[in-house]
């Protein structure tokens, strides 16, 4: 019995996110309607859907910010309903709308977030120096975040979100409005993080970015209508690119929300 379990651990890929028939209702409105999926360690998982399809609601549940009405979910091994505090400690989060404090300096932002996640001073100091070097931000160390160009700000925000080496990082439209070159550099940071074993859960409205994910799910009216690798989805929907796949699926939406 023990042996069997042991071999299971070796052969089974480690699941960082497990979602089983998750539902969220607001009154009579079912925002998230029985979604189920798993995300493996180190995977880049694209979470796509039209505005109002239920992505944000689902993501809030996975981050431990909102309780599911029905169903089960585990993130980094913790139950999203009953262990939401442990979930929050094990994840990183970044969105285009909120990322860093503009009125704090670069190093102060790093210090603040690392402190919130409980890192000790010695680790913070060492890792800050390393991070600034990797990003070529040494000169910006004492600069207020508000005076950084947007592209730099987004790269820093991502690095801060994974500074405490979370099991999984949630990225909510991280590249909106960013110039084309920076957008691509940002994805290279995502690849590096994934290679280090950080699982990446990302939403985007750029369909070329959907191609960069290992697997992509597409939500329509609260349900997951498709989930596979970009290559398989394109084959299944006889599409040339992910935009065509998305257009085919999202057009079916009957919800006129958001």
């Amino acid at each position, binding site marked *: 019995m023990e042996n069997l379990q042991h071999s299971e651990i070796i052969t089974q890929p480690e699941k960082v996110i497990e979602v089983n028939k998750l539902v969220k209702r607001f009154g009579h409105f079912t925002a998230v309607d029985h979604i189920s999926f798993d995300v493996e360690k180190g995977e880049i998982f694209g979470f796509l*859907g*039209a*505005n*109002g399809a239920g992505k944000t609601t689902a993501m809030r549940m996975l981050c431990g910010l909102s309780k599911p009405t029905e169903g089960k979910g585990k993130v980094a091994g913790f139950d999203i309903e009953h262990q939401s505090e442990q979930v929050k400690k094990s994840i990183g989060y970044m969105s*285009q709308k909120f990322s860093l404090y503009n009125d704090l300096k670069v190093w102060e932002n790093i210090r603040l977030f690392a402190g919130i996640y409980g890192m000790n001073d010695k680790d913070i100091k060492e890792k800050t120096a390393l991070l600034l070097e990797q990003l070529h931000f040494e000169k910006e160390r004492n600069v207020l975040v508000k005076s950084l*160009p*947007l*592209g730099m700000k987004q790269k820093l925000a991502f690095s801060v979100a994974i500074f405490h080496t979370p099991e999984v990082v949630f990225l909510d*439209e991280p590249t*909106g*409005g*960013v*110039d*084309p*070159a*920076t957008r*691509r550099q940002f*994805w*290279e940071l995502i*690849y590096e993080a994934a290679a280090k074993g950080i699982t990446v859960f990302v939403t985007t*409205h*750029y*369909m*070329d970015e959907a*191609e*960069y994910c290992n697997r992509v799910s597409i939500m329509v009216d609260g349900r997951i209508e498709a989930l596979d690798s*970009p*290559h398989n989805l394109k084959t299944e929907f006889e599409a040339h*690119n*992910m*935009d065509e796949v*998305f*257009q085919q699926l*999202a*057009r079916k*939406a009957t919800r*006129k*929300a*958001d």
Partner: protein
Amino acid sequence: MSQNNELKADSNCQLSIVNYQLSSVNCQLQLPTVNCKSISKAYGSVQALKEVSIDVEAGELYGLIGPDGAGKTTLFRILTTLILADKGTSTVGGFDVVKDYKKIRSSVGYMPGRFSLYQDLTVEENLTFFANVFGTTIEENYDLIKDIYQQIEPFKTRRAGALSGGMKQKLALSCALIHKPTVLFLDEPTTGVDPVSRKEFWGMLRNLKEQGITILVSTPYMDEASLCDRIALITNGQILKVDTPQNIVSQFDNILWGVRGNNMHKLLTDLRLHPSVESCFSFGDTLHVMLNNNALTTTALTTWLSGKGHQDVTIFPIEPNVEDCFMELTKQ
């Protein structure tokens, strides 16, 4: 070539000024509907616009394309007479943005990037309010907004603040159109909007264009460039290039290769190590590669890559898109 163009533009402009003195009607025919000349604007030490000049012709669907912080909103606010430029002159519909600002305000439609309707008024109240402010009625110009407004009409008693994002956008567009403006300014109407709704929105813009409305629209999405008659690529407060999307793409003066393989990320990092690779970036399922040595054959590159463990690599010539051009123009 480009100098010639500038000279031509200048003489046109002088001609228009002469016409302007002859008759104001003529002026409106001759001047482009929107005309900016050497506009500069700074906020403290931040130079938001540097010597920006653009012309938008009557009936044109004109795209101002660039990332956040490029200066798009600043230019819109100058043209809609909400702020003053530090330097330069602009006219909209033949009217000067400084001297004739009141005439501009009553004749243009403006949809700012941030939702700016009254959240506590209903859909219908908002529309009536904007119609009244501009001295008209919903009925008078209903034809213009019909296709758009009909989609939200079932919710006309709902408060604007309680609308979904897509519906807010349609209401804002209806309100910006209700006085039948000569020029419609749309500041990033599709930012944060999903690809299906974006396509739908551009369909609405095409219809408005067919009804003779001049549209100046800004967007950070480069794939929307091809939907415009002409585009201006803008970054860091400066216009990089103005032309039709087709011309911008055809002026890309480098050979661009598409490369595909099984391990795209490793392929990207390995390609960048090749001495003849000038640049290499991901574009969806393909890498776009530029070489600094045209003597390098695809066979030689394929062999080199297979030495790095890449089997089944395909290399093929590809057409650049507007995003390639933007990246090339912004390269230091």
